């Protein structure tokens, strides 16, 4: 089975800095592989480990896709090769632009059985790209997948769809988006990381991208959420006296 797992390099939300005007500065943020994409990569790795074949990791974006630490990061998690598209036009791309770029990049990989996407990117979390990619490629596509059982020419998946659990038979090739509960991403060992450096890493440039014709969604501002001012009356200790004082203070509020 040939599986393609899509991933996105994103600014780590834990490292975002807020400027004095409340705007978020992305330029200083540390880059990471999107956390939900790691679930997709892990699900793909487990599939090929179970039924043979190969896993190709695929990402589109601008210069961040060539980050050498993250290149090893993705190739040490079960994929045998990695393809990335580096195009400045994809910086800050919305879901429509991203799915178009992925569809073009998939065309360079050749035949495949299954494309797996995470439930959403860790930065924008629109939860759109996987199904859009499937629709662009004209393939069966479904989101919310929580379990995959491979078979001959099809997969049987369980899907968590709002208040229902569905079992679906999906003809291959197909594109699925997996829920984060599908897998626990592995922590690569030193051996995996060393081996990752020797695996094929292909960078595609501008020629693989067809511009999407209609107007994009643009981000006009990016601001830190406003937090209400809180009194912050802090008691320190779990001994009887401290807890009693704390209980008296909150007891008045809870009446």
């Amino acid at each position, binding site marked *: 089975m040939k599986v393609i797992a899509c991933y996105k390099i994103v600014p780590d939300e834990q490292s975002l800095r807020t400027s004095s005007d409340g705007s978020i500065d992305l330029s200083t943020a540390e880059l990471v592989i999107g956390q939900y994409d790691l679930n997709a990569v892990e699900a793909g790795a487990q599939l090929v480990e179970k039924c043979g074949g190969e896993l190709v990791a695929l990402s589109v974006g601008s210069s961040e896709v060539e980050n050498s630490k993250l290149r090893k990061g993705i190739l040490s998690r079960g994929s045998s090769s990695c393809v990335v598209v580096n195009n400045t036009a994809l910086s800050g791309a919305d879901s*429509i632009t991203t799915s178009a770029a992925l569809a073009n990049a998939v065309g360079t990989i050749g035949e495949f059985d299954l494309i797996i996407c995470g439930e959403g990117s860790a930065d924008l979390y629109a939860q*759109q790209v996987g199904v859009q990619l499937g629709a662009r490629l004209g393939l069966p596509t479904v989101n919310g997948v929580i379990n995959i059982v491979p078979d001959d020419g099809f997969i049987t998946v369980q899907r968590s769809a*709002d208040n229902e659990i569905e079992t679906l038979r999906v*003809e291959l090739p197909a594109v699925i988006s997996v829920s984060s509960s599908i897998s626990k991403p592995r922590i690569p060992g030193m051996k995996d990381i060393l081996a990752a450096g020797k695996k094929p890493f292909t960078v595609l440039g501008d020629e693989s991208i067809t511009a999407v014709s209609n*107007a994009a969604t643009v981000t006009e*501002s990016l601001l830190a959420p406003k937090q209400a001012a809180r009194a912050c*009356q802090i008691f320190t200790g779990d001994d009887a006296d401290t807890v009693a004082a704390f209980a008296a203070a909150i007891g008045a509020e809870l009446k």
Partner: protein
Amino acid sequence: MKTNKAFVFTSNQNAAGLCYAANALADSSTAAVLGSKQQAEAILPFAEKVIWMGEKAEGAMVESYAGAIADLIISEGASLVLLGNGVRDRCIAAKLAVSLNARVITDATDVAVSEDGICAKRNVFGGAAIATVKSTSALTILVMGSSSYKKILPSSTSELTEVIVKPDNCSIALISSATKEEESVDLAVAKRVVGIGRGLGSANNLSTVQAFTSKLCAELGCTRPIAEEEKLLAKSRYIGVSGATIVPDVYVACGISGQVQHTVGVAGAKLIIAINKDAKAPIMQNCDYGIVGDMNKIIPQLIELL
């Protein structure tokens, strides 16, 4: 200002709520309903025009009607499409976006229509930031909750329009479907909520927290890891950016460090009380009352004292 025409479809029950949003944002509204004729008729008061698409075919998934929905959107000449916040509606939105070359804004709030486009706010970076995004596309799809819209009715209503449609040919077969057995709780309406995080430690400590929750006449909520990884509580009890947003009078955060992904969901609480062993945890800067210590020692005492 308003946009020309809004089109509403949803696979969940809250079509009326989305119609309120459509009436607020557009000059005229059309709602399409896949289901029984009675379900379609029930929507008549809420939209200018209601299209009954017929009953869903036996064994078909609602997502397989994306092609039929796209055709209706074109024939109605809509410039705005509204879908609900759910896995199915998101799937439909993505298919529509590709077939209609439209732009999608998911989890849209504070939607505003201006001359040059449709603006909305949405949480990004796990709630660490709020983005204002603008679509200048001829067709914009919004995937959104509708609870913030007041009951706005259309200026006129009409008879039910029947356009009976068929699902797309699809290489996905529905083998079986079962309603989730997991409990479903609406924390959004709770007056008091006790939330637990990783500081709980062992699952054995849960019963004490439950006793504390009953003592306070509160509902029990949690952080994402407690529901998704530890699976100690139902997903509907998870509070935060992709979970519940709560607005209680009192929120008691127990063993919760207060990462923004969680606190964005409790920002609307009138009073926040924190119990956490780490004095440096972000929750201690984002609470009204805090106590630094072991929650599993403090909570049994509070049950006696309160």
